[in-house]
C-alpha cells in the first residue's frame, strides 16, 4: 500500500522492486489525491481529497474491526489502548469517510479487507502524509492499521516511510534533530547526557534545541540572530518564502556553506564553498532502509573548495579547539563509541558487507533487515506498542469562495527539490513549470492549455502557464517546487506547522486562478 507517495517518479529504483512483486501477483493499492504514474500500476487507486487521510485510515480501522479481521492475538500480546481506539473510530463509518474523502465506501471497504487479509503487507508513505500541519497524527493513524492487523515486525510486513533524500535518515540518526544525540539518544535524559559529557569533557545544555520552523519563529521574535546554514537553500524551500527571506535577510550574521551560490547564499555575510559530499569526500550516508553505506572520493573537488569536515574542524581550531585530523573515519569511530546502534559498523565491515542496516550493536551483529520483531517475541520484549486516537482535521488553509481550489505539490521524475543539483543536466523530460489542473477546471475557468494565469493564495501570487492533467480531479491543482525562478511555488504555500514534527503543510494550499491580463 503506497499512501501519499508517487514512488514511480520519486523513488524509481524502489519501484522496480515493487513492480517485481506486482509481476509475481502482489496487490498494489495507491492512495493519493492525484492519479499518478504510480497509481497507474495499482489494483486500486483511492483518490482521496487532500488532507483527509485520517478519516480514511480511521474508517479502514473501523471496518477491519467490524469485519472481524483484526489480529486479536497480536493486539493482546503486543499493543495497548485497543479498546479506546475501537471506541474512537466507531464514528468513522464508511459513509462518513466517503463523504469526507471523496473515495467510494466500497473501495475503502475492499482496501481495508485486502490489507487485513494479506499474509504480508507493507504500508509505505512519503510527504503526502508528512507535509501537513497534523503530520504526526497522519503517521500514527497509519501505524494504527499496522498494529490492528499485525503487519509489523515480521519479514516483508511493516510500515515504511520512504526517505526523499540520500541521507535524510542519516541526518536524523546522527542527531541533526533538536532533542537527540546520535543514535536517537535523548538530550534531556541525564544518564545519556552524562555519557556524552564524559566523552567530550564538558557540560552539555540539558535543554533541547529548535527545529527549522522553531528557528524561524525565534528569528521573528529576535531571539535568533545568527545562523550557520550547511547545504540547505531555505529561501527557496521554505513554505511562505517571502517570510523566510525577510527573516533571514534580517539576521545579524549568516554563514552559508554550500556547493553553489544559492538564493540563500546571496543573503549571507560569509559563504564557504563546500565539496560535493557524495563524490568529492569520504564518509557514509544512510538510506531509507537504514542501510549505512560508504561514499567515496571519485573526483577531486574544484580548487578552493573544501570538504565540510575540514571547514568545520578549521572553525573549531579558530575557536580554540583542536579536534585532531579531519578524517571521516575518525568521526565515524566516535559515533560508534557513543551510539550503541552503530557500534558494530566499522568501515571495514561496511566495505565487506556493502553497507549494514542499523541497529548493529557489535562486530558480530549482522544488522537488522526489519525492525520491531520484539513485538512478536514471547514473552514480549520491551513496552507495548500504543494505539493512538487521532481525529480528522482539514488542512489549515481552508477552501472558500475566494480560494476554491486545492493546490498540492510534489516532485517530477527528473528533478529534485529546488533544482540546485538536478537543474544542471540537460534532461529531455524537462519542461517549464506549469499549473496542472483538471481539464474540467480548464473549461470551468475558461482557460486554455499554455495560457498564463494568475495563481493566488492568501499569502502571495504567481503567474504560471496552465497544463491539463487528466490525473487530477476538478478542484485539485498541482505545482512542483523545482522552478522557483520561473514560478515561486512557496510564495503561495502556508507555513502552518505540525507542532510535533515541525513540518509545514506544503501539500495543502487554498488558491484561486484568474485570467492574466498579459495574455
Amino acid at each position, binding site marked *: 500500500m503506497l499512501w501519499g507517495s508517487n514512488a514511480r517518479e520519486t523513488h524509481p*529504483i524502489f519501484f522496480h522492486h515493487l513492480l517485481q512483486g506486482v509481476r509475481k501477483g502482489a496487490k498494489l493499492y495507491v492512495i493519493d489525491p492525484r492519479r499518478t504514474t504510480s497509481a497507474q500500476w495499482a489494483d486500486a487507486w483511492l483518490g482521496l481529497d487532500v488532507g483527509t487521510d485520517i478519516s480514511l485510515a480511521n474508517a479502514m480501522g473501523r471496518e477491519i474491526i467490524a469485519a472481524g479481521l483484526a489480529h486479536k492475538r497480536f493486539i493482546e500480546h503486543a499493543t495497548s489502548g485497543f479498546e479506546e481506539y475501537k471506541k474512537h473510530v466507531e464514528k468513522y463509518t464508511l459513509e462518513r469517510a466517503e463523504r469526507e474523502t471523496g473515495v467510494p465506501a466500497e473501495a475503502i471497504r475492499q482496501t481495508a479487507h485486502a490489507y487485513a487479509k494479506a499474509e504480508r503487507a507493507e504500508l509505505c508513505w512519503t510527504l503526502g502524509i508528512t507535509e501537513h500541519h497534523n503530520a504526526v497524527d497522519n503517521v500514527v493513524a497509519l501505524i494504527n492499521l499496522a498494529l490492528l492487523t499485525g503487519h509489523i515486525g515480521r519479514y516483508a510486513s511493516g510500515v515504511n516511510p520512504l526517505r526523499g533524500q540520500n541521507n535524510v535518515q542519516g541526518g536524523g540518526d546522527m542527531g541533526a534533530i533538536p532533542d537527540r544525540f546520535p543514535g536517537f539518544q535523548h538530550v534531556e535524559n541525564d544518564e545519556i547526557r552524562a555519557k556524552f559529557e564524559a566523552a567530550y569533557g564538558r557540560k552539555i545544555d540539558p535543554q533541547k534545541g529548535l527545529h527549522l520552523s522553531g528557528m524561524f519563529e525565534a528569528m521573528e521574535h529576535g531571539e535568533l540572530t545568527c545562523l550557520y546554514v550547511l547545504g540547505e537553500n531555505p529561501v527557496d524551500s521554505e513554505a511562505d518564502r517571502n517570510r523566510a527571506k525577510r527573516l533571514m535577510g534580517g539576521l545579524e550574521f549568516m554563514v552559508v556553506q554550500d556547493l553553489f551560490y544559492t538564493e540563500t547564499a546571496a543573503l549571507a555575510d560569509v559563504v564557504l564553498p563546500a565539496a560535493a559530499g557524495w563524490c568529492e569526500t569520504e564518509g557514509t550516508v544512510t538510506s531509507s532502509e537504514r*542501510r549505512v553505506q560508504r561514499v567515496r572520493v*571519485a573526483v577531486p573537488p574544484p580548487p578552493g573548495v573544501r570538504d565540510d569536515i575540514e571547514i568545520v574542524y578549521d572553525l573549531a581550531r579558530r575557536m580554540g579547539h583542536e579536534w585532531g585530523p579531519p578524517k571521516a573515519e575518525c568521526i565515524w569511530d566516535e559515533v560508534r563509541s557513543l551510539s550503541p546502534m552503530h557500534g558494530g559498523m566499522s568501515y571495514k565491515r561496511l566495505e565487506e558487507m556493502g553497507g549494514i542496516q542499523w541497529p548493529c550493536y557489535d562486530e558480530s551483529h549482522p544488522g537488522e533487515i526489519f525492525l520491531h520483531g520484539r513485538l512478536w517475541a514471547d514473552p514480549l*520484549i520491551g513496552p507495548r506498542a500504543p494505539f493512538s486516537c487521532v481525529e480528522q482535521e482539514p488542512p489549515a488553509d481552508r477552501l472558500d469562495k475566494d480560494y476554491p481550489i486545492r493546490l498540492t505539490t510534489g516532485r517530477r521524475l527528473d528533478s529534485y527539490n529546488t533544482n540546485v*543539483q538536478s537543474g*544542471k543536466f540537460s534532461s529531455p523530460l524537462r519542461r517549464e513549470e506549469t499549473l496542472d489542473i483538471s481539464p474540467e477546471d480548464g473549461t470551468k475557468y475558461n482557460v486554455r492549455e499554455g495560457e498564463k494565469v494568475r495563481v493566488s493564495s492568501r499569502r502571495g501570487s504567481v503567474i504560471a502557464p496552465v497544463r491539463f492533467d487528466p490525473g487530477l480531479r476538478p478542484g485539485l491543482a498541482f505545482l512542483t517546487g523545482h522552478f522557483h525562478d520561473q514560478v515561486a511555488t512557496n510564495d503561495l504555500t502556508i507555513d502552518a506547522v505540525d507542532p510535533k514534527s515541525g513540518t509545514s503543510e506544503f501539500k495543502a494550499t487554498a488558491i484561486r486562478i484568474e485570467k492574466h491580463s498579459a495574455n
Partner: protein
Amino acid sequence: MSDLAPKPLIPVPRGPVPEAPPPRKRAMVELTIDGQKVSVPEGSTILDAARQLGIDTPTLCFLETLAPVNVCRVCVVELEGSRVLVPACSRKAEPGMSIKTDSERVRLSRRMVLEFLASSVDVSTAPQFPGYAKRYGADPERFGSKAETVAQPPKIDNDLYVRDYSKCILCYKCVEACGVDAQNTFAIAVAGRGFDAHISTEFDTPLTNSACVYCGNCIGVCPTGALMFKSEYDMRQAGTWNESRQTKTDTICPYCGVGCVLTVHEQDGSIVKITSPLDQSVTHGNLCIKGRFGYRFVEVEKPRKK
C-alpha cells in the same frame, strides 16, 4: 519533536535478530560437462553448471539480471542425444545430461555466429568481441565486401543518449531492460522481420517523442556500444575517450533515499559516466535519470563560482 511527541524508549529494547525466511531447498542435479561430473541446484542452467566448473562460455545476449532470450546463439553447446545444439544460457540442467562445450561442432557454430554478426554489424566498440573472435578463429572478412550490413547513421535526438544501430546485434537486452525485467517503461521493441528486424521506438519516432524516461538502463546492458552515453560518444568522436586513464569508484547516489550504488567513471579529474554494479542488491545495475545523468552539477562551473 516536542513535548507532545511520545517519550522515546531508552535504551531501545533489543529483540531477536530478524531473519529472512530460508530459501526453498532445491534438489541437486548431476550432469557431465566435458567429461567432468558436476552437481547444481535444480533450476540451474547449463551455463551455471559450466561456470561452476570454471568453463568459460561466451555469451552476448545473456545477462544475469535479465531473462534469457536465446537469440545470439554464441553460447550453444552439444548435448548428447539432442539433434541440435542447445543454448547454455537458458537450457536447464537435467539429471544425466552429457554435454560438450568445446567440440568441433560447437566451435564451428560459435565461429559462424561471430562471423555472421561481425560481417553485418560494426563490432568495433563491443568489448567482448575481439577475444571471442580470436578464440574461435572468426574471420568476418571472408564473406567479402558485398556482405549486407546494417550500416546507418547514428540517431542523436537528445543530449543524453546516442543510438547507433549500425552496431546493434539484436540481442534484445535493451528491450528487456526497458520492459518487464527492470524498467517497465516499454519505450522500445523489435520492429520489422528477417534482416530488416531492428530495435525501434513506436512508429520509429525520435526518443524525445517516445515513452522513454532516460533511465539509461538500456545503455547499461548493451554489449556492443550501440547504445551509448552522449558524453562517452562525444569523447570518442573527439578522440579523447581513454579507458586506461579512467578510474572507477563506487559511491552512493546524491538524490532520493533509496541508496543506489553509483560507479563513478572518472577521467582527468572529471566524471565521464555513471554505471551501477549488476550484483548490487539495491540496483541490480539499474538507475534512474537522476542517478545516471544528474551528476552534471559537480562538473559545471568548475571551478564552482563562490
